[in-house]
């Protein structure tokens, strides 16, 4: 009994984990099945033959690579912009005293919880008036609406975790505030900045609603709306092609998970869910 218990616990836990991961396994399995095997009833749980033809078709016959490039530009620019602003902003919110600081922090938290659909209508009007609709720039601006409050909130928590004495010691040694920030705060904050950047990148990479409303030209569509339009436009839904697209779309995420996962978990602790 003493020996059996851990085995049972393991089997039980791993069955649940497998059940949760099954949709992802199925996504990969489907993307590797030849067309002839796909519509077998009942489905073959383990593919009888493996093919990469869907990936090849995705890259050579569909605009997938263009969507991918758009998403890379969009998510990277948003991340750089938001993290740069957010780092300075968080430093100011945590380590300086001036009137209205508390109100500002509260406003950040409020916007962090605000629903996108409230902002989408005025933003749409704004972009049309400025002649910015159907540009990647309009999406970068729109993504700031959720990414900036999020990044500020995360960075603020990370900044609060840096002992104030470190900065004071540098100031006593004659450093300026900016010098102290560069030499003392920034190196300490770097893991937090990386974590925030990863979260922002993923948020921007995955965003759908703004892309749906602000961009209707295929040339600037990011992956989210681009891949969905491949589903809608097809007369016969090509599931294996869509699953291949899904796998490819998740690539950055897989890379992050394989190499930088600790940054994601530390971001969770900072993101306002501390117990």
């Amino acid at each position, binding site marked *: 009994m003493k020996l059996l218990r851990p085995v049972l*616990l*393991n089997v039980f*836990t791993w069955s*649940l*984990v497998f059940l*949760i*991961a099954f*949709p*992802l396994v*199925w*996504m990969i399995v*489907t993307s590797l099945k030849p067309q002839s095997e796909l519509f077998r*009833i009942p*489905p073959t749980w383990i593919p009888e033959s493996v093919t990469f033809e869907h990936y090849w078709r995705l890259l050579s016959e569909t605009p997938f690579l263009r969507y991918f490039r758009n998403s890379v530009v969009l998510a990277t620019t948003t991340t750089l912009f938001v993290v740069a*602003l*957010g780092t*300075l902003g968080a430093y100011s*919110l945590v380590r*300086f*005293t001036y009137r209205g600081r508390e109100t500002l922090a*509260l406003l950040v938290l*409020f916007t962090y*919880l*605000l*629903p*996108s*659909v*409230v*902002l989408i*209508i*005025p933003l*749409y*009007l704004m972009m049309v008036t400025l002649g910015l609709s159907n540009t990647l720039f309009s999406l970068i*601006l*729109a993504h700031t*609406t959720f990414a*900036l*409050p999020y990044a*500020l909130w995360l960075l603020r928590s990370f900044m609060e975790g840096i002992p104030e004495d470190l900065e004071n010691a540098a100031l006593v040694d004659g450093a300026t505030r900016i010098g102290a920030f560069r030499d003392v705060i920034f190196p300490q904050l770097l893991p937090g900045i990386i974590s925030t950047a990863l979260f922002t990148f993923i948020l921007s990479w*995955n965003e*759908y*609603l703004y892309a749906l*409303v602000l961009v209707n030209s295929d040339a600037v569509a990011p*992956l989210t709306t681009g*891949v*969905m339009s491949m*589903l809608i436009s097809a007369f016969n839904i090509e*599931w294996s092609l*869509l699953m291949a*697209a*899904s796998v490819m*779309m998740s690539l950055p*995420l897989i890379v*992050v998970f394989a190499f930088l996962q600790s940054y994601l*978990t530390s971001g*969770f602790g900072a993101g*306002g*869910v*501390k*117990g």
Partner: protein
Amino acid sequence: MTAIATDPPRSAVSSPLERAYARLGVLLIAPTILVFTLVIVYPLLAAIYLSVFSIYTPTLQGGFVGADNYVELLTGKAFWNSLRVTLIWTVGTLTLQIVAGVGLALLLHQNIWFRSLARSLVLFPYFLSTVVAVLVWKWLFNDLYGALNHGLMQLGIIDMPLDWLGSMPNAMIGVILVGAWKYFPFVVIAVLARLQTIPENLYEAARIDGAGPIARFWDITLPQLRSVLTVIILLRAIWDFKEFDLLYLLTGGGPVTSTQTLSLLVYQEAFGLNQMGQAAAYSVGMMLVMLVFMVLYIRQTKEKA
């Protein structure tokens, strides 16, 4: 530092250095404030302003209608129907997320084989793009070739393939399930982090007192998790309440309007029915409902600070 030394000690707040620091602080936050005003504060106020106009989306022409949009909101069926749907969706998916999240966190806290791999696999859906999640689940839900129907049939749970997203109540159950699958990892991570900080001697003391695993869960684990669970529930309630992508992509609000939450109603009114003013009014109404949760959450986080 000389500034402080030579300054008469009137008040620390108004010393030249302090004032210079305050100016620098404002300077550092200024770009953020500028962007905030441009893309968040202005649109937010504009949404409230637009809600008293009637605007036809394609031409953006229209006129002032006063409170008409709000009268329609209060007396029409659309808003209340969507509010009801939103509450069903939120409560349903949130309950599943919490139960599954706490359960799996407890399991993954144990010493199991390849624990970090198991944790990674459980975490993954949370970071996955909603578009990818929806595509995969649409394929799983497919009535003819879907793995879900065939799996359930092979296990003998159902004898006929089910129409998962096209009829009620299956469509609601479907979106609640996918929502729970996508978002419960959030609960797992937050609870796991908290579990690791519960002092082991609490459990030892309980064991000496003869408490079984179930009693230990109710008497030690759950009370220790209480505060983190309150925050998780409020935060997830807010996020589930405003969820758009998942529902829009899975069912589009259908069949008819059975899964049309408030977010979808606003979108549909603005870009489907082309009534921007009315849509803005709905969005303001939605925000007012959410304000209750937001105030609760903000108070909760302030309490801890």
